[in-house]
């Protein structure tokens, strides 16, 4: 009876798995409700589609205590720097769910006022489709995020291109009006 058929348990589990398991089951979302998706996010937090089974029912208002930012709603040009500032103030490790088509791609509002996709401002981990995504869709997005945490890297962030560094892939072009960098 070798060790290989012994399922990993608390004694023989790797620390990395245990840490990822702990992070996965207590992701605290920051209240970043913007528009209609925020109402669906609230009903996900309420009794019927309860996310406290996933350890997430505590919506932390301050980014210091939040691990996950659910961008729920359309991001306007005036809100873009605020969103970036709140994202910067969140503690590592942090994840972003872009809830709804307006946050993911600007949705039906392809005009001057809406940032066409929040991935031009913050690196996004999971995109939830729908307008607004029904609570089940958001739960599915959260479970996808859990899967990503379980199988993802524990410490490394997706590599962000330093200025001037050549990148092979397509880097989303931030429109001029978005003011993103953080002052010294």
């Amino acid at each position: 009876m070798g060790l290989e058929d012994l399922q990993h348990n608390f004694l023989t589990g790797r620390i990395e798995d245990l840490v990822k398991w702990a992070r996965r089951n207590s992701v605290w979302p920051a209240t970043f409700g913007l528009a209609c998706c925020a109402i669906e996010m609230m009903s996900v937090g309420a009794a019927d589609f309860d996310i406290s089974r996933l350890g997430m029912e505590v919506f932390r208002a301050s980014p210091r205590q939040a691990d996950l930012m659910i961008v729920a709603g359309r991001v306007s040009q005036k809100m873009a720097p605020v969103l970036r500032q709140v994202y910067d103030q969140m503690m590592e490790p942090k994840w972003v769910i872009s809830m709804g088509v307006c946050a993911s791609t600007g949705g039906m509002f392809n005009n001057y006022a809406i940032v066409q996709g929040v991935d031009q401002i913050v690196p996004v981990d999971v995109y939830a489709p729908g307008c607004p995504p029904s609570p089940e869709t958001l739960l599915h997005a959260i479970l996808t995020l859990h899967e990503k945490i379980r199988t993802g890297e524990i410490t490394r962030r997706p590599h962000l291109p330093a200025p001037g560094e050549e990148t092979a892939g397509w880097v989303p072009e931030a429109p001029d009006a978005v003011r993103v960098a953080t002052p010294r």
Partner: protein
Amino acid sequence: MVEPRAVAQYLPIFLLFVLGVIFAAGSFLASSLLGPNKKPTDAKTAPYECGIVPDREPPQRFPVRFYLVAMIFIIFDIEIVFLYPWAVVFRQLRVFGLVEVLVFAAVVFAAFCYLVSNGALNWGPGKRLHEGMPSRTSESTISRITAEPDRPGRAA
């Protein structure tokens, strides 16, 4: 030679102290080992102002009311500290101990009454209550304007 029984008496306190140190050091070690990047960016050190980058220095002067509330906390904190030794031996002290601690509590409470009497706890201005506001219920505070019965085409 120190009498072993006397030393053993302090062993639990010592153990508690060691546990405390282990737990504190352990959590710092874990977060330094497992935490992602250690260099806090400027946004993380900046004060959180609901997402707005403050361009004005936060004011230095604070009204005195905040300080008075801190004073009230200090009073009761000191009182608790003195209750600990009393709590250990209050059986042997019997009635004398009880009276003693009640007098002590009364003296502390007098300080609290003085603070409250000159307004440490009433913060805002008095509510602009209308005089005639009886303790109303959600029914009594509203009035219902029913439709005039003689309107044409009313559904049966």
